[in-house]
């Protein structure tokens, strides 16, 4: 065996050892990050199965004695009126998603397929709107909602949630750009109206964009809490967010009960995420490039 092959072999082993060490460190970093991401949620999960006595005496990190103790869930479901809150949130999500999908796709169709004076102006109005930080205008938006009689009005809240979104329009606009115009042309030549082209031909073709917008918007509206707290203060219309917010009243610092409520609100998001993972990731990407 010559010296050179020995040298090559040792550097190879050295390189392999180095790779293994790096790889191990990468796995450790990932595991640590996942531990940190999960710890707050998992500790709430374990706490939600503890009885009041157990909660008061055991350490926060101790596991519950009885994993089938659903008493906290029952209590938060009943006393926290969570069924009602879920139904309210569900109706808000459905209405806002349908309205956003319809408005976004219709406007994108018109802007993308028709040449008319004002096309550029409308695009500019929407583009400039992305530059104005919406959060800075909460104060005067409240004044408008007040004058429209939309305080404590679920309809007003739905309109507000549907009306302040540029991302869905942008996603549809991108989508229409990649839909071949030949389809529309032949349909119109065969006597189809522009309305017919949109509803019968194009809208069904935009299904991927519809799913993306629906998932993104749906999760966003379901989790929305700032406007919900501001505009839905009466007990009649409590979304999940406002219902959760009000827990600090009746359940004070009984975190074992509050954690049960928190976990219940996570379930819909988790289910949607597990089913539509790809769309969530893709939607984020197209949403973030709104420039």
């Amino acid at each position, binding site marked *: 065996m010559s010296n050179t092959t020995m040298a090559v072999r040792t550097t190879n082993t050295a390189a392999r050892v180095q790779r293994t060490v790096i790889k191990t460190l990468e796995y450790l970093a990932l595991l640590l*990050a996942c531990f940190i991401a999960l710890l707050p949620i998992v500790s709430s999960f374990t706490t939600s199965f503890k009885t009041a006595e157990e909660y008061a005496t055991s350490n926060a990190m101790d596991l519950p004695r009885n994993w089938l103790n659903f008493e906290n869930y029952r209590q938060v479901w009943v006393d926290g009126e969570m069924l009602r809150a879920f139904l309210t949130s569900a109706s808000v999500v459905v209405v806002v998603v349908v309205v956003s999908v319809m408005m976004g796709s219709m406007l994108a169709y018109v802007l993308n397929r028709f040449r008319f004076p004002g096309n550029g102006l409308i695009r500019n109005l929407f583009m400039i*709107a992305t530059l104005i930080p919406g959060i800075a205008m909460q104060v005067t938006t409240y004044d408008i909602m007040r004058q429209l009689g939309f305080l404590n009005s679920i309809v007003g809240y739905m309109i507000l949630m549907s009306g302040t979104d540029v991302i869905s329009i942008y996603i549809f606009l991108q989508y229409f750009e990649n839909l071949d115009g030949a389809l529309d042309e032949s349909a119109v030549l065969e006597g189809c109206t522009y309305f017919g082209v949109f509803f019968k031909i194009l809208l069904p073709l935009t299904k991927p964009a519809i799913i993306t917008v629906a998932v993104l918007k749906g999760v966003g509206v379901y989790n929305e809490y700032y406007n919900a707290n501001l505009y839905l203060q009466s007990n009649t219309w409590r979304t999940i967010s406002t219902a959760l917010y009000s827990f600090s009243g009746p359940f004070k610092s009984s975190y074992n009960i509050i954690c049960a409520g928190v976990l219940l609100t996570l379930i819909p998001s988790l289910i949607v995420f597990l089913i539509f993972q790809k769309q969530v990731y893709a939607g984020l990407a197209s949403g973030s490039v709104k420039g």
Partner: protein
Amino acid sequence: MSMTSTVQPDLRRKRINWQKVAVIVAFAVVPLFLLILFTYVPFVKMIQFSFYNMSYTKNKGFVGLDNYLRVFSKSEYVGAMLLSLYYMAGAVVQLALALFFASILSLERIRGGGVYKAILFFPFLVNGIAIGYIFKYFYTRGFVLDSVLQAIGFSLDSLPYWLRDQSVNNWSLVFTSVWKYCGQNMVLFIGAIASIDPTLYEAATIDGANRWQQFKAIILPGIKTVFMLNLILSITGSLSAFEPAYVVGSMGANGTATFFIKIHQMAHVSQKVGQACAMAMVLMALILIFTVLQRLFFRYVMKDSENTFNAKANKAKALW
């Protein structure tokens, strides 16, 4: 070439196509109305209100620039604005971590990479109010965080009250924000890295480039646009930070009230709408200045052209 063939299309174009007008009006009027109602009207009102001493229901008269002068002269507001520095620091850490994990998950063959990605991303989907409770519980004396720290050798007496102690509580809040948004940033980076031509890595490996060199020479340039968008969003987000202080910090208690929390309280608790509008104007001006500066920086220093509604408008070919 006859005359008619060139004239006819012009004549046809002049005839108004009423069906086209109908579809444009029917499809554009509602979104446009809502855009104006919820973006441009509040914008104009905000400018107007900022010069008045007024509540939502009573207007006590024009006060000129008084509201603005008060924003800059009260140390309370300047201090609240300076809290965004904590959030900016957090945003830098967050972007670095997101980029780090995105490159690991994209470049290395990680077993179960999708699972790690999903776990790191999930906090982004947690309801904000739920985050509030989760972290109030997490940070409570002797509870989750303290137990973990005790397990690795800290004594409880040496640990601060994470949400009450003013020397650490803003960092505690910033952490909740990093916890929520890091995975989302990471997903965006993973998407950007996935769009880079994979043969570049192969070529680089053959040329003997190590991972770090590949990262510098291939990934960083490839994700420039997404990186810069994330950076802009993080910085402007830091300026208007309110979520952690609102949900975890009990509406800005113990010196955690960010500038936006102050605006919120000024308008909805103190009912001084004019003053709140002046503060909002200052916030908006700062955000716009930061956004424009960063865009200019990227456009001229990095020679990067951006993808906007408008660029698309110029390119788009209308069908009808």
